[in-house]
């Protein structure tokens, strides 16, 4: 007979000896997960290997790529100096730089309002905000709206419609609700108004959530291409994803056309695509692992409490 306390101890000392079945299971599980990781990573590895490959070798054999075929970093040199890629990169950075501060302030304000207590019009206002999550005008009316506002061909056509995501506001709201009320109350008594409370008290306390929200917004902006494909016609104003789209998906030769040294582009026509992918994707992939432990919060709230 075992008593519970004994059972608890055994978990640490692992008196339960793993059976043969357990071992087989563990090994299979481990092998399967390693395989999954290989399958997950391989496409990114492929991109890196392809970007360092020899252009002609890659063109003739684009299948399985265990290592770079030939070694040549020329594609990167070209990608970093190509006017369209550089302008795309710049546009994306400007887009992020203007959008993120707006996102942050709007989300904090909206989350703070949603988390506030004893506000007379809170319910109807929240209902108005939440409704936009479930119903929208749809592609054409939104498109016409942006046109009417005169935002065509400007960066604001990307920044303003994405100024806030209700979903992220709810994540922010839940984080604010977890801050003890007494902190806000004592700040009130000391004469702080709501703005001071949001920026001086709430903001530092929910930093992890803010970091995750900035990551969500940032990745969404960085990876977005559809709005820009609708609203922005001027090539030199397109964000980098749209340049990638033209090069990778539409197979257009805008890279050649815009380059001053045509012959050099031809030498790297295929590999420069992969170099461009690496340059645009690596920044994002370098950031998320550091915020990984905070993901749980955001996802939990978002999915269950919606």
């Amino acid at each position, binding site marked *: 007979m075992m008593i519970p306390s004994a059972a608890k101890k*055994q*978990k640490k000392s692992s008196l339960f000896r793993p059976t043969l*079945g*357990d071992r087989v*299971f*563990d090994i299979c599980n481990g092998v399967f*997960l390693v395989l*999954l*990781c290989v*399958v*997950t*990573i391989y*496409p*990114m590895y*492929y*991109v890196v290997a392809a970007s360092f490959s020899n252009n002609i070798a890659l063109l003739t054999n684009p*299948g*399985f790529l265990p290592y770079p075929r030939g070694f040549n970093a020329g594609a990167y040199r070209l990608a970093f100096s190509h006017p369209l890629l550089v302008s795309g990169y710049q546009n994306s950075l400007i887009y992020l730089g203007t959008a993120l501060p707006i996102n942050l302030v709007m989300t904090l*304000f*909206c989350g703070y*309002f949603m988390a*506030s207590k*004893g*506000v*007379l019009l809170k319910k109807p*206002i929240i209902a*108005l*905000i939440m409704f*936009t999550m479930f*119903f*929208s*005008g*749809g*592609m*054409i*009316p*939104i498109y*016409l*709206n942006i046109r009417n506002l005169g935002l065509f061909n400007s960066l604001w056509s990307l920044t*303003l*419609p994405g*100024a*806030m995501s209700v979903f992220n506001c709810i994540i922010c709201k839940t984080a604010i609700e977890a801050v003890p009320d007494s902190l806000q109350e004592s700040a009130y008594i000391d004469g702080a*108004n*709501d*703005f001071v409370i949001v920026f001086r008290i709430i903001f530092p306390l929910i930093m992890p959530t803010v970091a995750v929200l900035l990551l969500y917004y940032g990745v969404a902006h960085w*990876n977005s*291409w*559809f709005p820009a494909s609708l609203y922005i016609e001027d090539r030199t104003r397109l964000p980098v*994803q749209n340049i*990638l789209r033209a090069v*990778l998906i539409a197979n257009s030769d805008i890279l050649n056309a815009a380059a001053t040294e045509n012959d050099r582009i031809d030498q790297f026509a295929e590999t420069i695509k992969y170099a461009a992918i690496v340059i645009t*994707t690596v920044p994002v*992939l370098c950031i*998320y692992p550091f915020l*990984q432990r905070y993901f*749980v919060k955001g*996802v939990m709230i978002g*999915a269950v409490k*919606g």
Partner: protein
Amino acid sequence: MTTSPPRAKFGSPYNPYKRKSIGQIIARDYKQNKYKYLMVLPVLVFIAVFAYTPMTGLVIAFKEFRPRLGIAGSKWVGLTHFENFFNDIFFVRILRNTFSISLLNILFGFPAPILLALLLNEVRNNKFKRSVQTITYMPYFISLIVACALIRVYSQNNGLFSQIAVAFGGTRQNLLMNKNAFYPIYVISEIWQQIGWNSIIYLAALSSIDQEQYEAARIDGANRFKQILYVTLPGLLPTIMILFILRMGSVLNVGFEKIILLYSEATYEVSDVISTYLYRRGIVAENPSFSYATAIGLFNSVVNLTFLLVFNWLAKKATKSSLF
């Protein structure tokens, strides 16, 4: 009537049940919460301009919209566009494809992260577990453009997928031009991109299962498989239920950006969905018919909303938790 709340005089009996006039309530609310309203003001302006204004633009679904005349000046045509849509030769096709892609995606894409979470939960070595998590999250952060570009590269005649297909006795071909290959490519790449990210929520739910239940099961002689079956899965069931119901609520939301990036005329038969058809008719076409495309969009939104409400109601009934 006073505009500011009366101050309780010293010694006067304070009666919280005494009814205040509406004016007093508003004045008090304004005085206490004016900054909160000031904060929510930009949010309200934002949704008014970028969410509700387009909603009013939906009226062009009932008009023959001419950009020159403006929304107000265009003439009413009633339900003509909807009738045309229901009689459209492509109506059945795009509806069928929308449901097919979405349901296939749920059928295979929904259980995958649960399975991954269950397997990760069995891993004892924390470092290994965290590494697997980090790696499987990665594709979620890769842009759709890049993901689809890779799919295209792998699907070409001499690409990786074709090599695999040939190894298994298939023929050398461009898989994206093959109608039968579109759904597998779409669903598998979707799993590749989402599996790690979607497993987060299940892993969180798993960590809240009481460890003593496992000990009790072990004492009763349950092996690892039986522990998963009788302890882990039941503990996970509420989360699975609610997520499944919510997922069903957005059954008509197909990732149409991805389809735009992957489809071609060769595969329209299986890949053209409501939103891509709308996009072609309303934006890409040389003479975009804004009204017709808006009618299609409105149809899509209304069906979506209906699904959402029905499944939300089901969620409330079944699990006592819901979206709203």
